[in-house]
């Protein structure tokens, strides 16, 4: 998994986000055991306490659970994973809509553009 961090948000929240993406995309499949905090921290290049904090919060949300001695696992509750996926998708759509609105597009225009992109006749040079 590729980890990337931006400067404007706390690192632990970016970790939560990226682990969630890993879970919904199947990079961390349901029921899979996660690497240790230290190994995950080294892999992501972050402070181990920060990684710990992110995992603790994912545990509180239920996407990850821990078993005393065996370690941490991804939830097997596929409905929960599906709902996390929807939430991530909603956020992406909102960000996209916000950016398009900033460019001056109306909702209908945006939908038309998306539909055209989808059918393979996306924007060409000279369209505007």
């Amino acid at each position, binding site marked *: 998994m590729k980890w990337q961090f931006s400067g*404007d948000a706390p*690192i632990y929240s970016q970790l939560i986000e990226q682990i969630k993406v890993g879970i919904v995309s199947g990079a961390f499949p349901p029921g899979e055991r996660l690497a240790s905090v230290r190994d995950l921290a080294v892999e992501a290049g972050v402070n181990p306490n920060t990684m710990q904090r992110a995992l603790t919060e994912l545990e509180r949300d239920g996407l990850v659970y821990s078993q005393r001695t065996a370690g941490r696992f991804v939830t097997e509750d596929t409905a929960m994973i599906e709902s996390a996926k929807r939430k991530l998708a909603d956020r992406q759509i909102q960000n996209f809509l916000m950016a398009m609105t900033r460019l001056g597009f109306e909702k209908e225009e945006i939908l038309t553009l998306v539909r055209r992109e989808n059918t393979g006749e996306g924007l060409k040079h000279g369209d505007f």
Partner: protein
Amino acid sequence: MAIFECSELTKSYGRASALDHLSLTVEPGHIVGLLGPNGSGKTTLIKLANGLLTPDSGAVLVDGRAPGAETHSIVSYLPERTCIPLWMSTRKLLDFYQDFYADFRRERAEEMLTHLNIRMDQTIRQMSKGTREKVQLIMVMSRAAKLYLLDEPIGGVDPATRDYILNTIIGNYDPEAAVVISTHLIADVEQVLDEVIFINQGQVVLQSSVDQIREEKGMSVDALFREVFKC
């Protein structure tokens, strides 16, 4: 209990004040960035912690003790300048550290040296400046110390080695130990730090967790530093 503590620590060189009633504490299990512009007192602070300088007033305590023989055994110190003997080979240097420090983990050092393709029979004199810095840092990080004081550990090495070194610091993470890294390459170390201490003109101007800064200010520590110390 704090592993490293300064209270009202003051030090001047003649009439030039280096540290001015500086107080701070570092808890075990934390990786702390000591950040400040040139001449802000970072190196003076680290030298005081190692007993290389004595305070004019105030106190510096390592694991509850004033710097001395006992604290040297639990502090692993990387000076700002490389100070390993030039005539020694890498192998000889390993012997030297093994003789000197009971907590030196030779296998760990050997593993890192091999990983960075540093030869055992090469003398320090034959190495480039960057390689010398790598070797010294490997020696320092291979001790099972309780407090690591690293004065500009990544200044002279290339970005790929920098990543390797930072990963080594995280990988060696021991909840009982603390690491203090003085640097001005903030963007490179920010992700591995728990906390940062900004010092300026010998005083602490800010001590906060990295994520708290990002949460409250909506900017990275690097960006905040540029704002606070804008010239």
